[in-house]
């Protein structure tokens, strides 16, 4: 194995993050509203994908129900903001994150005890279907028509108050929040806890033998990833100002999986690259009714066939081949 420990690349990761942040933040000054909207949604999807990869690439857990936490976050935020408009938005975002993590904790206590691998995947799929159906049945959440009229809040910071509803304020607020979430994920992945997660992904049995409480760490990974996604979902609610049960559908849960596997599992920014590819494809094919699925599907297929191992994995292998070193690529097992 020539792979370096993940901790050593922090300068590169931070530099990439900072550049991307500056580019995204300057978009409203140079492009139109359409592209800004795509970019804002992309930022949320990046968090969505990266948090999923905390479970998959880092801990070896495959969840097929990640979207349900995105939806739980969105709906929890929208509903609370409606019934109790007085709560400070930042407090509410934090509370929604804690709520998402708590739900994941409850689910995980039961689900992770008996099952890992494909069972955990299918179990989370079943749970996400339950969330999806419940969201489309509960009248207070707007049933299948969706939760409408979500307002962008006013943000009081003590010394000043920012009206997030005006101009592109909400977009910039969202970028800052996403940057914080991504930084948090990066920190978790590179902390001592992250290294324990990694050991579980590589060999859970051996980790248990070394005295690591496997269940507790899996549960933490699941709860952290789900809480982070819940906050991303909460940010999404005022961004779109409308929530439909579709964001809990399994096809949306497939997104972070696609992002991660497209971009690459092993590198921190892999899922972000996958999300970017998807956003570009969707934006590029948005006018091609019906054909857009064909184009997106075909490109996905071509990428998978050409670079099994993700785009970043493929590039790094290409680089290794150029420098004539034997390339060994470790891939986490998904179904066994």
């Amino acid at each position, binding site marked *: 194995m020539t792979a370096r420990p993940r901790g050593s690349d922090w300068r590169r990761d931070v530099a990439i993050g900072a550049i991307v942040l500056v580019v995204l933040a300057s978009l409203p000054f140079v492009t139109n509203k359409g592209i800004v909207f795509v970019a804002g949604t992309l930022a949320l999807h990046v968090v969505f994908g990266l948090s999923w990869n905390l479970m998959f690439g880092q801990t070896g857990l495959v969840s097929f129900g990640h979207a349900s936490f995105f939806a739980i976050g969105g709906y929890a935020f929208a509903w609370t903001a409606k019934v109790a408009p007085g709560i400070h938005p930042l407090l509410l975002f934090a509370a929604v994150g804690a709520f998402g993590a708590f739900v994941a904790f409850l689910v995980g206590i039961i689900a992770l005890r008996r099952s890992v691998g*494909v069972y955990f995947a299918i179990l989370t799929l079943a749970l996400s279907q339950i969330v999806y159906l419940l969201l489309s049945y509960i009248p207070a959440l707007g049933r299948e028509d969706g939760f409408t009229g979500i307002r962008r809040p006013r943000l009081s910071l003590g010394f000043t108050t920012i009206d997030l509803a005006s101009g592109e304020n909400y977009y910039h607020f969202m970028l800052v929040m996403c940057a914080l979430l991504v930084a948090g994920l990066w920190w978790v992945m590179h902390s001592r806890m992250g290294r324990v997660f990694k050991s579980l992904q590589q060999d859970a049995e051996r980790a248990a033998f070394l005295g690591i409480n496997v269940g507790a760490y899996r549960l933490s990974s699941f709860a952290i990833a789900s809480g982070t996604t819940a906050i991303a979902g909460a940010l999404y609610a005022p961004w779109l100002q409308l929530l439909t049960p579709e964001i809990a559908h399994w096809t949306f849960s497939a997104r972070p999986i696609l992002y991660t596997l497209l971009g690459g599992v092993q590198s921190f920014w892999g899922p972000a690259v996958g999300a970017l590819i998807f956003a570009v494809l969707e934006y590029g094919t948005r006018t091609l009714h019906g054909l857009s699925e064909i184009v997106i599907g*075909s490109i996905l297929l071509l990428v998978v066939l050409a670079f099994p191992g993700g785009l970043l994995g493929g590039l790094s292998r290409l680089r290794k081949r150029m420098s004539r070193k034997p390339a060994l690529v470790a891939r986490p097992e998904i179904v066994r």
Partner: protein
Amino acid sequence: MLALLFGPLFNGLFTAMVVFLFATGLTLVFGILRILNFAHGGFFMIGAYLAFSLVKTFASDTSLVAYLLISIAAGIVVGLCGLVVERLVFRPLQHVDEAYSLIATYALLLISEGAVKAIWGVSFHSVMTPTALGGAFMVDDLVMPLFAIFIIVLGVLCYGLLEWILQHTATGKLMKSVASDPWMAGMLGINVPRFYAWIVVIGFFLAGLAGGLLLPNQTLSPNLASVFVVQAFGVLIVGGMGNIRGTFLASILLCVIDSYGSVIFSQVPGIFFYVAMAVMLLVRPQGLIAGARL
């Protein structure tokens, strides 16, 4: 009274056989190639749309024979698609981690959805039930549509046939041996790649056939692809990782529970399938029929 007690049972059995007919091809492909084929729903849908077009062109009288022939024709066309998919997608990805064939099948699902939108449009379509299957049986106050009875019988027959092939024929033994150890099977002189190709073709054929057969029961729209996939994955896993008997029993169990649950808690229909599925996975994570391949 009868309707209250046995109505949900009948409806549950009907949906169970719908799910089972959908899941047979999926089970076969998963049981042998270990590919969780998201695209199965897409090709099921293509089969249904093909059958729809054939019905519109050839069979205005919707006779039973025409319905069966059209379903088989749809199955054959989809089976040929399977041959292409196997050669271009599944085979190159055979030696890569299963996760990547998962994206590939998801991509195929997107492509088939797009193809259906491009060819047949996004509007809703439906066809009449064949005249011979149009009526209904009445026992006391329990109404049993003939079409539902037909599907139940068909599901049981299909299960019986597959079970017979698997347990009592040379082909079945071959399938089981390849499923349990492809490397060893190859060593013993079985042409495993060609065998895989056949399995995929048969799996896709079954998807297309199910599409045609279940057409009178469905409203055709491009969403059809993702409707059954999750339920089918559920019965596949609850059944025990790709064996036909487990899939059959799991479909009956989950659908009947769901049917009664939906009657008792009518505000949240359809939820009990997933509740039962989650409970089953926790109580019996190894599946109903553990250990058995196919």
